[in-house]
């Protein structure tokens, strides 16, 4: 297990408390946790791609960065309108 896989594991573990925040707190607080989780997920995929020597994961990281941004904007739009 190299340093990149250890880093990916630690970063992956940080998603659990963010999930708890998103579940327990107000929806707008959960949205902030979701945005943070998107950034963490992108970094996890970068670390996994280097650690596992799978270059395809780099593309997945790019897709994850864009998808989490678009998802965040959609949630902001709906939460801003309905809360």
């Amino acid at each position: 297990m190299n340093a990149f896989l250890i880093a990916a594991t630690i970063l992956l573990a940080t998603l659990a408390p963010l999930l708890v925040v998103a579940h327990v707190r107000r929806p707008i607080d959960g949205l902030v946790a979701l945005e943070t989780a998107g950034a963490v997920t992108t970094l996890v995929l970068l670390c996994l791609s280097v650690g596992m020597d799978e270059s395809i994961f780099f593309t997945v990281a790019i897709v994850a960065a864009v998808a989490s941004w678009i998802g965040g904007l959609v949630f902001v739009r709906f939460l801003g309108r309905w809360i």
Partner: protein
Amino acid sequence: MAVDVLLGLGVAAELLCVAGVIVMRTALDRLHYAGAATGVPALFVLAAVLVHEHLSSGGLEAIAAVALLFLLNPALLIATARAIRRTEEPESDL
């Protein structure tokens, strides 16, 4: 060795940002830490990847991923801050 140091700094900074998102009381305080999560920690991880991969196709894709995070996230943060203000001050015309 340099890769380990850069990765350690990146992970530590990211943990600090996640801790801030969890611990802070108000949504705007959390948002500050959420914004920081795409700044310095992502750049440390990118530096570690570049030291390991150099400017190969993987390294260039890593630059693209972190650049997207770094450049797109402020727009999302501003939109979120406006939504937070709207929920906490309904009369606000933002």
